[in-house]
């Protein structure tokens, strides 16, 4: 796993209160991790701050699973 992927998983795991190892690409941010609107804002701000890549609203709207978030960073 790349360092960046690990950083992304750490941010998600910290915010969702879940073990990073338990996060799978198919894990759903809302249904499985309970990421509601305020948590989603925290997640996006933390990701932008930690990884230094701005996420547009359109890109954020496409992030439904952990895999979607990882794929976004792999494309950058």
């Amino acid at each position, binding site marked *: 796993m790349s360092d960046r992927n690990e950083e992304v998983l750490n941010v998600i795991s910290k915010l969702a*209160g879940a073990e990073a190892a338990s996060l799978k690409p198919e894990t759903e941010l809302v249904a499985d991790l309970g990421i*509601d*609107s305020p948590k*989603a*804002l*925290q997640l*996006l*701000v933390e990701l932008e701050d930690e990884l230094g890549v701005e996420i547009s609203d359109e890109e*954020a709207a496409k992030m439904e699973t952990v895999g979607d978030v990882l794929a976004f960073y792999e494309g950058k």
Partner: protein
Amino acid sequence: MTEAAKPPFKSRLAAMLLWLALKFIGRTCSIRSFKGKERMEGLEKNDQPVLLCYWHNRIFFFAYFVEKALIRKGFKLTMMSSLSKDGEIGAILGKKCGALVVRGSSSRQGSKGLRSLYRATAKENSSIVILPDGSQGPVYEAKMGVVVLSQLTGCPILPMSYSVDRYWAIKSWDRMIIPKPFAKVSIEIGKPTAVQRDARDEEMESERVRIQNSLNELRDSTDAAAKVNP
């Protein structure tokens, strides 16, 4: 940031009528008491944005009051209006009051709306107004959005409330209060507090409850003040 599409005629007409009512009622009302006034003074000159925070049913007079007391003096303010038809009317009214408006809600596209508020504060140095039990209630129950915005921006939350001696109570989810013309208004501004950036989940929940309690105390205090005969 603002919506580009022109709203339907019905919404614009309703907003215009509400605007006229707001102006008429606001101008005829008088302030009976104003506790914590010093907490609002000079906000328009302050570089630090604040999160003005009050219950949804207090929106009517505060729309008039905030425009007159702050926006007119150059205070930069952004508000969120829901994506519903009522929200569309609210958005038009907000713009007429001189506020910047973002669309969204806690129930639909909420994170986009919250994110727009975050950007307005963090990137554009705008204060925001947030109604923590909106847009769909339950009434007098604060949601987490205001706490997260304070945590991420470092901006203080300024809780505020008002009551009037004579008003119409609308049978809506929020029990909207519309002051009657020539009503006497009691306003109270609470103590500003900011949420720490490193706050944990349980601390965030404590903050949410604290804000809720603070707003309810201000509501009760202004209710009591408004009923007092001078």
